[in-house]
């Protein structure tokens, strides 16, 4: 460079202050969300037909024997609450990854059929093949990946186009849902509880056997996505700009899709496709964080909070015990419509 005009120190300081302030806001939001998740987690261990005080819960979690609580909290509530957190984090993280990558809030995996595909495969494996545990998880992940790749291949005519991908996803989602319905109606007696698990998601009957694979997947795959944070941020600027910034666009996208689909599939195999969590977490996180950096971690936390709270509401607030997916579905739908209305009005990315 022949001449470099050094910028005024005041401007550099202003830029730095601006950045620090935005990062600070984001950190504060993350901290508050994390605290809320912990509180909701504790609440779901304490609340139930019998209330156990925090002391009892802590002792059970630490492995001590407490009359009654050891079974109720340790065997029933703990796996359920852990699964709620794991599934929420997974759905939130995967959802916001898809939304960021496809540059459209509506392109979340539950709108475009990836989650329904995993749900259909899991239901098939359980009902027809009599499988359980890891085999079901593997089936779900294979199906979800197949759906994602099929969608990608079908949408690829001259370069993948987001719009087309979303519409094709809607078609695939419809097919997957009808396959699930068919599997369930073939199961002989229409087992309503089981059906709801695979259609809308449910934490009823959560066990450690179902939770552990999802937890392992989260531990392995979440870091992959977090490492890609900056690349995903650049992809938001369009493929060309991202590429000009030195990003391997296709490679980033494939890695992100595989990781996100993996998260979704393992969580879905454990508790069904909990309606709208993937879809809601990102936009809610965006609302709270504002334009202050990556949404991956905030969205994951929002997802966990949503599942925990919706499960509490579904179990105890409504008289009848509703599965968590029905609650998130009913809560999520108006928000979805609000979002469509708002985006349409702004002439946004639709």
């Amino acid at each position, binding site marked *: 460079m022949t001449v470099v005009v050094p910028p005024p120190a005041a401007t550099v300081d202003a830029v730095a202050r601006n950045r620090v302030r935005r990062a600070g806001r984001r950190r504060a939001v993350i901290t508050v969300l994390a605290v809320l998740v912990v509180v909701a987690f504790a609440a779901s261990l304490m609340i139930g037909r019998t209330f156990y005080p925090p002391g009892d819960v802590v002792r059970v979690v630490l492995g001590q024997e407490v009359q009654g609580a050891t079974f109720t909290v340790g065997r029933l509530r703990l796996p359920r609450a852990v699964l709620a957190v794991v599934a929420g984090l997974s759905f939130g993280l995967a959802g916001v990854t898809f939304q960021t990558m496809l540059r459209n809030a*509506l392109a979340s995996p539950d*709108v475009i059929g990836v989650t329904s595909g995993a749900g259909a495969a899991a239901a098939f494996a359980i009902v027809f093949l009599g499988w359980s545990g890891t085999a079901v998880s593997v089936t779900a992940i294979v199906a979800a990946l197949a759906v994602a790749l099929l969608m990608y291949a*079908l*949408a690829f*005519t001259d370069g993948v*186009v987001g*719009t*087309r991908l*979303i*519409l*094709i996803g*809607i*078609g*695939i*989602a*419809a*097919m997957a*849902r*009808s*396959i699930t*319905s*068919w599997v369930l*109606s*073939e199961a002989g007696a*229409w087992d*309503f509880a089981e*059906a*709801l698990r695979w*259609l*809308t998601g449910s934490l009823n009957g959560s066990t450690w056997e179902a939770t552990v694979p999802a937890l392992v997947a989260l531990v392995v795959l979440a870091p992959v996505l977090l490492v890609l944070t900056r690349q995903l941020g650049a992809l938001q600027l369009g493929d060309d700009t991202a590429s000009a910034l030195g990003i391997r666009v296709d490679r980033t996208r494939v890695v992100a899709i595989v990781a996100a689909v993996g998260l979704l599939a393992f969580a879905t195999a454990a508790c069904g496709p909990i*309606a*709208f969590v993937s879809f809601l977490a990102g936009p809610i996180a965006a609302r709270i964080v504002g334009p202050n950096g990556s949404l991956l971690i905030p969205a994951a936390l929002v997802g966990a909070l949503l599942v925990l709270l919706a499960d509490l509401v579904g179990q105890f607030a409504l*008289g*009848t015990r*509703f599965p968590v*997916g*029905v*609650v998130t*579905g*009913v809560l*999520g*739908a*108006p928000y*979805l*419509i609000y979002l*469509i*209305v708002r*985006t*349409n*009005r*702004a*002439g*946004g990315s*639709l």
Partner: protein
Amino acid sequence: MTLAPSPSPTPGAAVAQRLGSVRRPRSVRVLWLLVVLAVLVAVMTTSVAVGSRGVGWSEIVAALGGSSETIGEAAVTKRIPRTVLAVVVGAALGLSGAVMQGVTRNPLADPGVLGINMGASLAVVVGFAWFGLFSATSIVWTAIAGAALAAVFVYAVGSLGRGGATPLKLALAGTATSAALISFLTAVALPRGDIAESIQSWEIGGVGGASFSGLRTVLPFLVVGFAVSLLSARALNSLALGDELAAGLGERVVLARGVAALGSVLLCGAATAVAGPIGFVGLVVPHVCRLLVGVDHRWLLPFTALTGACLLTASDVVGRIVARPSEIDVGIITALIGAPFFIAIVRRQKVREL
């Protein structure tokens, strides 16, 4: 100075060109009409003859004559209303989809995709659960009201913002609304054991439980729906050219569109009331028919009714055969046939037009 107009086509010329390229000779249309009628007779016969229990021709003939003495004859007697229902519902959905695509000028419009059938379903379940509406006529009225509400809502949401009701926006609004309605439906039905039993039939449509009395209840609604829809053909032809041009041709755009939409909603609401939500028939049929007879709605609309009847009846037969001795609801079959078709349409469209 020469004043020869530039060769840039005037709207009129473009339209003439467009219509010219898709106009089919009358003979071709009549031929296709005969083919479709033949297919319809064939699938209806198959539908009566085929099922989980095999029956002989003599039994079928006897059953058609009103006898139900042997088990075979009794089975056939049950298949007759089922076949009639499939034909009627298929015709209603096919026609409803064609009108909807015409009204919205949107190739992805379909009572299922747009969530309108689900609106009818939810309305019926809410009617059961909260208002004790169990009489056959009140079910039809609620279904139609639900369908109309859902249609207005989805169209309003989908047409906000830039570019009006693009296929993408409408399809997304419809899917979102559908998903919302299913969640509400589950939430309403779940605490009530009496309804929860039959909830499956309100989430997936089927024609298995058909009876002539049920058909008789919806028949007046369907007749009005068919009449209104078919009479809208000319208006839909004008609307196909765009609102401005249609108004320029003397069409009262808002009125014409409202009337046609009403006919379409009547059809799919009544169909849902008697058979539950069945998707994709209204999507697939008009596209196939346009290939056969062109885009003139005066031919297209009756054709979609006939083809819809063929498709739904055939799907029902397939559902009865592939999973013997049990049956697959026709709503599942149509989704499995229709969704790939939907994807094919999306792939054919230019992105700009989505």
